[in-house]
């Protein structure tokens, strides 16, 4: 069984990767569960999942330090985007920290995943870098839910949220949210780590290897098919 961050599942990429692998390996079935990265790693700890795809570097470090991985590599990279009601992209510009400071100063509605996901881990780091503690602020809302539902809440409540780009693009045409004008930066990169849990089957190992090795070959086509963009998900390295 494969457990992956909800961003990859909500964007549709994880299922597409599993389909591709299954058609290349008839008879093999890949079961995908989408959970926040913290839960994905917890599933791995409890031996309930064999292959983990996560994007929460701090938590991954703990997992690896405990010697729970057979092997583990960054395989896929995408980006984080701040999205919000249309019109904001003209008002708010600058680095992500500057934009967050402006959001807090103006008291603009912000929706947080608040669920221990990789996106949430990164959001907290961005707030810290901006020198702001948003918890408890009247404009700061926490859903405790996955990326998809959090984007729906942000859309209907005219709020800003931090999203992984693929999950946003997957629903963008049905929502009224637009990406804010945040200056490009290496800080916005969103690396996904593929980890094989110790003691997993050969079949699981083969799939994890395939994800890492084949990412450069399969991602371009999947990007075009799923999102109409060439470089949304990129192979790492």
């Amino acid at each position, binding site marked *: 069984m494969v457990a992956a961050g909800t961003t990859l599942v909500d964007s549709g990429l994880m299922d597409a990767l599993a389909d591709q692998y299954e058609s290349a390996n008839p008879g093999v079935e890949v079961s995908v569960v989408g959970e926040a990265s913290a839960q994905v790693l*917890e599933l791995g700890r409890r031996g309930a999942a064999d292959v983990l795809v996560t994007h929460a570097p701090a938590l991954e470090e703990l997992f690896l330090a405990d010697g729970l991985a057979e092997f583990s590599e960054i395989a896929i990279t995408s980006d984080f985007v701040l999205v919000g009601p249309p019109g904001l992209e003209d008002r708010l510009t600058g680095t992500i920290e500057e934009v967050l400071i402006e959001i807090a100063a103006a008291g603009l509605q912000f*929706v947080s995943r608040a669920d221990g996901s990789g996106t949430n881990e990164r959001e907290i780091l961005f707030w810290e870098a901006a020198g702001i503690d948003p918890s408890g602020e009247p404009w700061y*809302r926490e859903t*405790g*839910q996955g990326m998809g539902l959090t984007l729906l*809440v942000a859309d209907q409540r005219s709020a800003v949220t931090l999203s992984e780009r693929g999950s946003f693009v997957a629903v963008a045409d049905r929502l009224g949210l637009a990406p804010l004008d945040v200056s490009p930066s290496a800080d916005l990169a969103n690396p996904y780590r593929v980890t094989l849990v110790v003691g997993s089957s050969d079949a699981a190992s083969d799939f994890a290897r395939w994800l890492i090795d084949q990412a450069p070959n399969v991602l371009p086509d999947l990007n075009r098919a799923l999102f109409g963009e060439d470089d949304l998900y990129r192979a790492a390295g």
Partner: protein
Amino acid sequence: MGFLLEVFRDALSALSGGLGGDLGSVVWLTSWIAFVATGISVLIGVPLGTTLGLSEFRGKRATTVLVNTGMGLPPVLAGLVLLLLLWRGGPFGAWGILFTPAAMVLAQAMLAIPIAVGLTASAISGLPLAAKEQLAAFQLSPWNRGAVAVREVWPAVGGAVAAAFGRVISEVGAVLIVGGNIRGETRVLTTAIVQETRQAQFGQALAFGFVLLGMALVVNAGITWLQFKDAAR
């Protein structure tokens, strides 16, 4: 066994931490949403159910089938339909109540009204024929006739109220979809249990579960007490 004991201990310590912080706001929100939704469904459902139970008309059987189907309406479907109706740009989008408690009340009422109608109607239909004929003989307004009938079968109508409340308080699919589980705003006991479970906070989840069970127990004890008090008279 060790695992279960550990979760149980965590739940107890979460409970003994008092009703402070999140638990307080979650319980408060759960209570008032459930009471308002139950109130609406009783105000609408009991009169409708009484009318359905007392009157004979063409299509009564078909109406009963519809009501009974409504009693089993899948909550996620109710949630989805309501989400589409309340979505900005949808027919009732201008209300701006999606992902607010108001939407959750609507969702719960939508699920509980058929229960109030169906159980009241079946209780009224169960009146002995002689009682029905007697009722018809009195020169009463339809409203008063209904009131007398409801009083006749009150314990069963009380059961309908209890069932409507049970549906409302235990429901998670619809309120998660139209409420969004926003902390301090739309997070209720059931959606909090889902979230804590997904985050592997099993003790906290179980603690919320105990509180939920406790609330159901208190409300049902109240209704049962009223049922028996009147039945003994």
